[in-house]
């Protein structure tokens, strides 16, 4: 019998116990995977954006719009290649579903966000049709929108001059992301801001929530954001400029202490799991003390007995942990699909790496004490049952 065969045979001697322990390990890692990916959203959600863009908002809050007349001043700053802007529309689909709808200047936006790809003809149609809208692939797929349709979207902020809360836009294009992570950002809708400016009954004319500054050189991000903010200091429209990554992170951080709660849960789960598996391992070693003594009598070294016990712990944790992480990956994908990409629970490589590290650590934590005990066994005492 090979050593690995011996380890497996030992595990399955008390089949019920092994299976039950495995199931608890699976449950723990299923939870671990899901929570870790939630945690991931809070900590590093905006990794893919890079630092080539700055976001400028009103210093008091991004809900306070800034005058579009700032654009030429911003574009005159050395190092700023192009400026786009976007305005939150407060879009609502059907009864009560909030949509991410922004009023933008099409061609400026296209220059600043080359990551969103769409045929040139559709960009031109968007720029040249006043009542046009374009939709991201994710959202268009979710609601089954097709190019050429007129899409009714209402706004919970801006009434239309003639039709109240109800607006309608001609869908002239559907854009996708240049890669997977940008594809996941395509749950937004863009409308033409000239039309928005003219047709909203509120008279917020010539103002917008955000300017997005595309930089010629990302190394100068900090200097340029200081220049921008200094330029408008002491005016009613003081600005706050930060990198796109910091902006996104700050946005997520607004949700507040959820990340902390998640870490608490993880801690509780892990502590619980450690005890469950640790106890099982300790018990199985305790019951087999005479056998381990026999192994030693047969000439197995102290080290190899230690190795055997550790291998058992590792096998248990590894199998249970991997199955649990797989289940979590599938579950996360299901949640993501079920919510149309609104709630992105992807178990990417980083979650898996942390997961595998946790598996190894856990095997050591639960296996080491029993393994050391097995290593220290005195043959005579153990055989005599002392």
């Amino acid at each position, binding site marked *: 019998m090979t050593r690995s065969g011996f380890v497996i045979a030992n595990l399955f001697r008390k089949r*019920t*116990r092994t299976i*039950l*322990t495995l*199931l*608890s390990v699976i*449950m*723990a890692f*299923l*939870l671990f995977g*899901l*929570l870790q990916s939630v945690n991931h959203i809070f900590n590093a959600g905006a990794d893919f954006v890079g630092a080539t863009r700055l976001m400028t908002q*009103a*210093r*008091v*809050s991004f*809900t*306070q719009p800034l005058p579009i007349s700032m654009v030429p001043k911003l574009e005159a700053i050395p190092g700023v290649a192009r400026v786009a802007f976007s305005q939150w529309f*407060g879009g*609502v689909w059907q009864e*009560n579903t909030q949509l991410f709808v922004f009023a933008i200047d099409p061609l400026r936006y296209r220059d600043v966000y080359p990551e969103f790809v769409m045929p040139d003809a559709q960009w031109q149609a968007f720029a040249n049709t006043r009542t046009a809208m374009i939709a991201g692939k994710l959202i268009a797929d979710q609601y089954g929108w097709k190019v050429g349709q007129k899409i009714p979207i*209402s706004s*919970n*902020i801006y*009434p239309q001059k003639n039709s*109240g*809360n109800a607006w309608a836009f001609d869908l002239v294009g559907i854009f996708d992301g240049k890669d997977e992570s940008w594809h996941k950002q395509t749950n937004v809708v863009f409308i033409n801001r000239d039309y928005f400016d003219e047709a909203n009954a*509120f008279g917020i004319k010539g103002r917008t929530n955000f300017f997005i500054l595309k930089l010629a050189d990302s190394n100068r991000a900090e200097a340029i954001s200081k220049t921008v903010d200094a330029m408008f*200091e*002491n*005016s*009613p*429209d*003081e600005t*706050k400029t*930060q990198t796109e990554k*910091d902006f996104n*992170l*700050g946005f997520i*951080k*607004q*949700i*507040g*202490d*959820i990340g*902390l*709660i998640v870490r*608490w*849960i993880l801690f*509780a*789960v892990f*502590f*619980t*799991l450690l*005890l*469950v598996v640790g*106890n*099982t391992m*300790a*018990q199985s070693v305790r019951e087999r003390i005479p056998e381990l003594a026999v192994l030693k009598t047969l000439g197995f070294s102290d080290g190899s007995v230690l190795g055997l016990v550790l291998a058992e712990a590792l096998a248990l944790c590894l199998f249970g942990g991997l199955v649990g992480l797989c289940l979590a990956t599938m579950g996360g994908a299901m949640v993501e699909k079920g919510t149309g990409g609104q709630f992105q629970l992807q178990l990417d490589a980083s979650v898996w790496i942390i997961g595998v590290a946790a598996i190894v650590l856990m095997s050591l934590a639960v296996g080491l004490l029993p393994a050391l005990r097995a290593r220290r066994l005195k043959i005579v005492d153990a055989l005599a049952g002392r």
Partner: protein
Amino acid sequence: MLRQALAITRISISSIPERWAPSLVIVIGLAGVVAVFTALLAMATGFASTLKATGRTDFAIVLRGGSQAELNSALLREQTDLIEQGPGIRSGADGKPLASAELMIIAELIRKDDVKNGANITVRGVEPTAFALRPNLKIVAGRKFTPGLRELIVGRGVLREFQGAEIGKTVRMRGSNWTVVGEFEAGDSHDSELWTDVNVARTTFGRLGSSSVLVALDGPDGFQKLKTAMAADPRMTVDVIREQDYYDGQTQQFRQTIGFLAGVVTIIMALGAVFAALNSMYAAVAARGKEIATLRAIGFGGFPVVISVMIESLLLALGGGVLGALIAYVLFNNLSVATLGQNFTQVVFNFKVTPELVLRGLIIAVVIGMLGGLLPAIRAARLPITTSLREQ
């Protein structure tokens, strides 16, 4: 039979200390489940009760039609005047209607545990009637703002979670400095706000009208009167909502999200705990095999054995449940946290570990204890006596 069951249970329970390790697994496992469950729901309860306390049933809030939250709403001066003169509104001591047109704007403050990322804080511009409408709001330090000056008063909750709004500090808004002159406490979601004079807010932020009008209703049919009058007036499209319904609606999404999270996490953890409990109880039964067989041999029935194993499992589970609830209470009760509300601003609230939540947690613990005890109990009763007796 009952006496038999009691006798065996007494033996088994008094032998728990000898088998403490597997018993501890059940206790700790259940403590984990109940602690997590209680803590998560205590968060949802705390959030909901903070907002619910803000709204009264004899008040109504008037917003622009379809705007759903104060942040999105805007009413013109003419409209707010018409609303304040509408029917169904109670009059104050001075004979004027008890109504307050308020302007909600947002400023950024930095969390205490952060250095640069701003969080959205509600700044509420109010008229003097606003204080009459909220008698629970008390100035606890400093003084009220002076109308016409750029002065702010700050809610307790804001001070607890965010920096830069202490009395005497200045908050920068739209190119001007605003001095914080007082601190107030209301015991509801207004504690997460900064208040100032509505007219100063209007001129500074370039807003002409208001976000909402809060009115005290006159009698039980006041609501309907006001609502009908507003619907009939062609000059406005507004929603008239009972204040408590409005604030209740603001919590729905949060409660759903947290409820879903708590459900998923609890189910997965509970399954894990059931498996662990099964494991431990099987081990307990195996360890006591000889003892059970002896009892059976001297005439004890199988059923009392089942009962005794079940009771042991239940007691351990209940102990774990109580421990978990205690942990949740000690660590989380009254823990102050802040999160985004429907108005896209921070709502500061406390976790609330209520007796009802603890009870629900204990029920979960008991169910898990039953599930974990049943199969091992049946196995214990079915142990073949002779072989068990012969075992080492």
